[in-house]
C-alpha cells in the first residue's frame, strides 16, 4: 500500500457539453480523514463515481490504492468500501440477510463472515434487530450498518457520500466516532458532508466549486488563510461565487 491512497491529475467528467468535474488534482494520504466539500451540483458525487470505478472519466488521470482508475477498476472495487449518497442497503432484507448478502458479494469465507457478523452487531448495537427488515430501521441505524458493511472486507479506503445527511445529532456523532475508529485502524476515509461542524473533524478538507477544487488544506489552515472563524464561513465565501452549481 503506497503512502498516497488516492491521487488525481486533471481528472475531468463532461456530460455532453456540460463539465461536471473540471480538471481536479489532489492527493489523499494513507490513513487520512479527507473531507470532500462543495455546493450542490459542484461535482462531488461525480468525482467519487470516477474514483470508485462506476463512471469513466472524460480525461485526466487517477489512481486509488495504487491502481489506475482507467484500466484497473475491478481491482479498485475489491480494495475499497463505498457508501453511495442515499444508499440504504436492501430495505426488504433483514439485517442478517444484508450482512450475508454483502459477505457473499465480497467473497468472505463462512468462518470470517461469522466473526464479522458478531462484530458488526456489537459495534452498531443491533443485536435485537437481526431479523428486522432494514427498511423498518431508523435512518441513523441504517447508515451505521451500511458503514459497517462497507468495511466488511477490510478495505484500505472507504468512500462515504453524505453518510450523515438527515441523521439526528446524537447518531451523527456516533457515526463520526466510527469514522475515527476506522481511521485509527489505518483506513483512509474520503467523506462528503453538508454539515460544516463535521468538516472540522477532518484532517484535511477540499472545497469544490463548479467542478473545480478551490481550496484544500487542514481546517485550521483554511480558517487562517481566509481569516474566518469557522469552515462554514470559508465555505460560504467560496460557494457564493459559484456560477455553474445551482448555489
Amino acid at each position, binding site marked *: 500500500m503506497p503512502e498516497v491512497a488516492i491521487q488525481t491529475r486533471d481528472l475531468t467528467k463532461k*456530460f455532453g457539453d456540460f463539465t461536471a468535474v473540471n480538471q481536479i488534482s489532489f492527493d489523499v494520504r494513507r490513513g487520512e480523514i479527507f473531507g470532500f466539500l*462543495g*455546493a*450542490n*451540483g*459542484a461535482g462531488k*458525487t461525480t468525482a467519487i463515481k470516477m474514483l470508485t470505478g462506476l463512471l469513466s472519466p472524460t480525461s485526466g488521470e487517477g489512481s486509488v490504492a495504487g491502481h489506475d482508475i482507467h484500466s484497473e477498476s475491478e481491482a479498485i472495487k475489491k480494495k475499497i468500501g463505498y457508501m453511495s*449518497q*442515499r444508499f440504504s442497503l436492501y430495505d426488504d432484507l433483514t439485517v442478517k440477510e444484508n450482512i450475508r448478502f454483502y459477505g457473499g458479494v465480497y467473497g468472505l469465507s463462512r468462518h470470517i463472515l461469522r466473526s464479522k457478523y458478531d462484530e458488526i452487531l456489537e459495534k452498531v448495537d443491533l443485536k435485537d434487530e437481526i431479523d428486522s427488515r432494514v427498511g423498518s430501521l*431508523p*435512518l*441513523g441505524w441504517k447508515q451505521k450498518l451500511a458503514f459497517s458493511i462497507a468495511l466488511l472486507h477490510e478495505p484500505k479506503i472507504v468512500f462515504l457520500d*453524505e453518510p450523515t*445527511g*438527515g*441523521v*439526528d*445529532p*446524537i*447518531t*451523527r*456523532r456516533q457515526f*463520526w466516532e466510527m469514522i*475515527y475508529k476506522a481511521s485509527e485502524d489505518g483506513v483512509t476515509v474520503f467523506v462528503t458532508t*453538508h*454539515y*460544516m*461542524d*463535521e*468538516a*472540522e*473533524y477532518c484532517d484535511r478538507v477540499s472545497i469544490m466549486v463548479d467542478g473545480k477544487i478551490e481550496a484544500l488544506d487542514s*481546517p485550521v489552515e483554511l480558517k487562517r488563510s481566509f481569516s474566518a472563524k*469557522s*469552515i*462554514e464561513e470559508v*465555505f*460560504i465565501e467560496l*460557494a*457564493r461565487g459559484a456560477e455553474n452549481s*445551482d*448555489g
Partner: protein
Amino acid sequence: MNNVVEISEVSKSYEDVKALKEISFEVEKGELFGLIGPDGAGKTTLFRILTTLLVPDSGEAKVLGMDVVENYREIRPILGYMPGRFSLYQDLSVEENIRFFASVFGTTLEENYDLVKPIYQQLEPFKNRLAGALSGGMKQKLALSCALIHKPELLILDEPTTGVDAVSRKEFWEMLHLLKHQGITILASTPYMDEADQCDRVALMQNGKILKISTPDEVAQSFSSTLYGIRSKHRFQLIQVLREYQYVKSVQPFGESVHYADHRNDPDTDDILRYLSTHGVEDAEIKKIDSNIEDTFMELMQQEESHA
C-alpha cells in the same frame, strides 16, 4: 379563527409500532413551526395525517378548522406538501416537473413565478435537464418549488434541506421567512439545529411523543447544567479522556470544541484542566458557554431513551 393546524390526542399505530401516542398541539396562522426529532420519532406519520394521506386511529386533526378525515377534498388544494422522499418525475425535465405541478392545481408557472423565484431561479440554467440527472440538493430545490407553485395556505415540509448545501440552506430559510410574511403558515421538520433556531416555536419529538414545545431560546436555555466549551488540538483524545472523568455528565463534540457538563454544581475548572493534563491532554482551554438548542435536544433525547 387563528389556528391553522389543530391536533388533539392523535394516535396512530402500524402493526406493532405505536408511531404517534396522543399527540396534541396547535400552529397559528403565519407561524413558522419546527418539528425536530430523530428518524422514527413520528414526524412523517404526523405530516401524512395532516396532508390527508393517512387516517389517525384516534384523536382529531384539523386544518383551517376542517377535519382531515371528513374534509380531505377541501383541504388538499390549500396545502403544499414536500415529502421527505423525492416526489419528482425523474423522467421529466426540471421545467416540465414544475409546469406539471402547476397545472394539477389549476395555475401556471408564470402566475406564481415570484413566489418560487428565489429558489427556482437557481435551477433555470438547467431547466431542460431531466430531474433524474440533478444532484441531490438540486432535486430538493425543485421539489420545494413544486410544492409552492400553487401558493398554498399551509406549507408542510418534511426535512426540506437534507442534502442541501450550507449556502442554499441559508437562502432557503430566508425564503421561508418571506413566505411567512406573506401569511403562509409553515410546518417543517429538520435535522439541522441551526434551522430549528429560526422557527417561532419548535416541538421536540421522540418515540411518538412530544417531549417539549417552546420557543427556540427557551429550549436552548433549558439545558440542565452549567456547560463548558473545551478546546484542544487532540480532540479525539480529549473526548475519550473526558468520558472517563469521575464527575462527567455529558461530552459532545461540536465542531472545533467539545461541550462538557459535569455532575457538580459549581465545578472547579482548574481541576478539570489538571485532570486532562495528567491524562495526556496538556493544551486544553476551557470556558463557560451558553447552551444551544442542540445541547438541550441531545439531553432530552438521552433522558427519554433511558426511560424508554
